[in-house]
């Protein structure tokens, strides 16, 4: 095994130590990731854009800071991949849509600015469902991403590019965004860790909005500790986002380190009755139940909690999200940025005619479905029955969380009802696709944080299963404590991490340059 493939399999925390000790350099590490991308991304297609030159320049600058004894952060020099929904100055940002093909933003999203300030070289931009609308990354206008565990299967969505990049060892770290599960569900089906922070915990400035009241950016990693390290880099108050919470982040890295000791004495864990059982794949339920028993063995007190309004969460979400999306996507009007299509059949077309032609050509099926659904739900005559009622159900869901967090410190469930399904299986069945998010959506509606941690492989298909932990708003540290404990307990059982380069390499065909 070459030095490069040895480097790419290591965790970000481990790489940070290797950089600090002088064992490796950021240039060497970044080159190893770029080599790995060149080797496997033809088959995986996690990236829409790779910035080799920029990443290597940032890596060289990082090495210079290290040499001068002034690293910008613990993760200075550790490369990262960024979901293509975050604005990156000088790098294309398409949101997986034709309507933004070739757009190069003139500014950085706050998350991106913080990554740059902390010295993390940006390898490139990752694939996603168009405007983050989907659970499979098949709705990308630039072709699907393939799950490294089985290239014929989906890597989850909308952030399938970020999860696949991390799972295929193309990057040690990535950024995702989660509106209804787009960080956690891809984490579950690729055997990686994904965290949706508390709403308002990470700035949305420069994050192209799907649904403002639900969107939240967060870490995509292979270990819980790596997620905590990254979360501390990107999190915290941002005056440029009026919904940003003006309070210090809890001590996340400390919580992850504490959790790794796998002592959960005094921690109350609530199993959500409505998020499991019927509709959940047998092997998913089995791995979840086993993981709960491991938590009990580590001293946790497990109780069953009921959140009766969660059964309405999917319906509320599929009214609120498209309503916000239809309003947000109105900005793609062919006037200030992005695609402009002139209708062929009209001489001297009006702005409105240009808008219609552009939006037809620029948006894919799922974007059109959601824009029309949102337009319907917001139209007079239906507003109260749909959007208004969905907002009331949102209140009921928050109340269910409040009651449940009175009985338990964290809530747990399977992250997704099934393992990764074959590409194409649900592409033209929107409802079946939406059901993937049934366990992740309540957290977005209530604004509470959640993590998906790998829980093993489903016995029937050998594919990864995710274990979800939810905590009260602003108590993101609890995710890391319980998540790291479960990770430590499982890895002790397995004798190794779930993801291994040796296990994946025979599944990803070698791509010769």
């Amino acid at each position: 095994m070459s030095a490069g493939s040895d480097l790419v399999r290591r965790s970000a925390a481990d790489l940070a130590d290797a950089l600090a000790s002088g064992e490796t350099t950021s240039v060497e590490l970044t080159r190893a990731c770029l080599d790995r991308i060149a080797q496997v991304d033809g088959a995986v297609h996690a990236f829409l854009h790779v910035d080799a030159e920029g990443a290597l320049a940032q890596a060289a600058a990082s090495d210079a800071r290290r040499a001068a004894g002034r690293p910008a952060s613990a993760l200075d020099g550790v490369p990262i991949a960024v979901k293509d929904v975050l604005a990156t100055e000088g790098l294309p940002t398409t949101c997986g849509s034709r309507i933004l093909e070739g757009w190069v933003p003139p500014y950085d999203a706050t998350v991106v600015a913080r990554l740059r300030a902390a010295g993390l070289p940006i390898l490139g931009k990752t694939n996603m469902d168009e405007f983050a609308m989907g659970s499979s990354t098949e709705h990308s206008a630039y072709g699907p991403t393939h799950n490294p565990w089985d290239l014929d299967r989906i890597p989850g969505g909308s952030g399938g590019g970020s999860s696949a990049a991390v799972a295929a060892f193309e990057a040690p770290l990535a950024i995702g965004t989660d509106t209804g599960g787009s960080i956690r569900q891809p984490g579950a089906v690729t055997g990686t860790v994904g965290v949706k922070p508390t709403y308002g915990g990470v700035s949305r400035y420069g994050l192209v909005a799907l649904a403002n009241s639900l969107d939240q950016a967060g870490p995509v990693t292979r270990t819980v500790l790596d997620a905590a390290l990254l979360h501390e880099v990107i999190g915290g108050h941002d005056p440029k986002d009026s919904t940003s919470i003006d309070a210090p982040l809890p001590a996340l890295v400390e919580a992850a380190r504490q959790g790794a000791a796998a002592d959960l004495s005094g921690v109350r864990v609530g199993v959500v009755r409505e998020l499991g059982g019927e509709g959940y794949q047998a092997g998913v339920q089995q791995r979840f139940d086993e993981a709960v028993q491991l938590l009990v063995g580590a001293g946790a007190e497990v109780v069953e909690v009921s959140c009766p309004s969660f059964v309405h969460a999917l319906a509320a979400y599929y009214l609120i999200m498209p309503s916000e999306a239809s309003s947000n996507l109105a900005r793609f009007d062919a006037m200030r940025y992005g695609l402009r299509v002139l209708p062929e059949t009209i001489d001297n077309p009006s702005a409105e005619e240009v808008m219609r032609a552009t939006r037809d050509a620029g948006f894919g099926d799922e974007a059109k479905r959601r824009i029309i659904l949102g337009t319907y739900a917001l139209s007079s005559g239906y507003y109260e029955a749909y959007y208004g009622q969905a907002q009331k159900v949102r209140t009921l869901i928050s109340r269910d969380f409040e009651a449940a967090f009175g009985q338990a410190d964290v809530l747990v469930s399977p992250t997704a009802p099934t393992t990764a399904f074959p590409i194409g299986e649900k592409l033209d069945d929107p409802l079946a696709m939406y059901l993937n998010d049934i366990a992740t959506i309540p957290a977005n509606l209530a604004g509470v944080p959640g993590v998906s941690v790998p829980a093993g492989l489903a016995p029937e298909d050998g594919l990864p299963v995710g274990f979800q932990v939810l905590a009260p708003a602003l108590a993101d540290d609890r995710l890391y404590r319980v998540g790291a404990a479960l990770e430590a307990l499982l890895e002790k059982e397995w004798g190794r991490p779930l993801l291994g380069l040796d296990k994946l390499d025979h599944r990803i065909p070698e791509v010769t340059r």
Partner: protein
Amino acid sequence: MPEISRDEVAHLADLARIELSDAELDHLAPQLSVILESVASIAEVAAGDIPPTSHAVPLTNVFRADEPEPCLTAEQALSGAPASEQQRFAVPRILGDEQ
């Protein structure tokens, strides 16, 4: 049970400024009906006196200090524009022939 007709989808697409072809209307209208049916149960949740939540974090009227800050230059702001003229966005005509 809410049904959404092909004509209704065409009208909504019109409101949303999307030119849908006949084939797209045939494809999308039945799918939208299925989705609407699946969310219709929401109307039956007894929530009459429950206050609506628009936003998980109850923040209102967040202002920054009224101090000048650097912002994008005209060149930067226009850098992604399909067309520009004299440091402005150039757009197709906005009035009809008869107006």
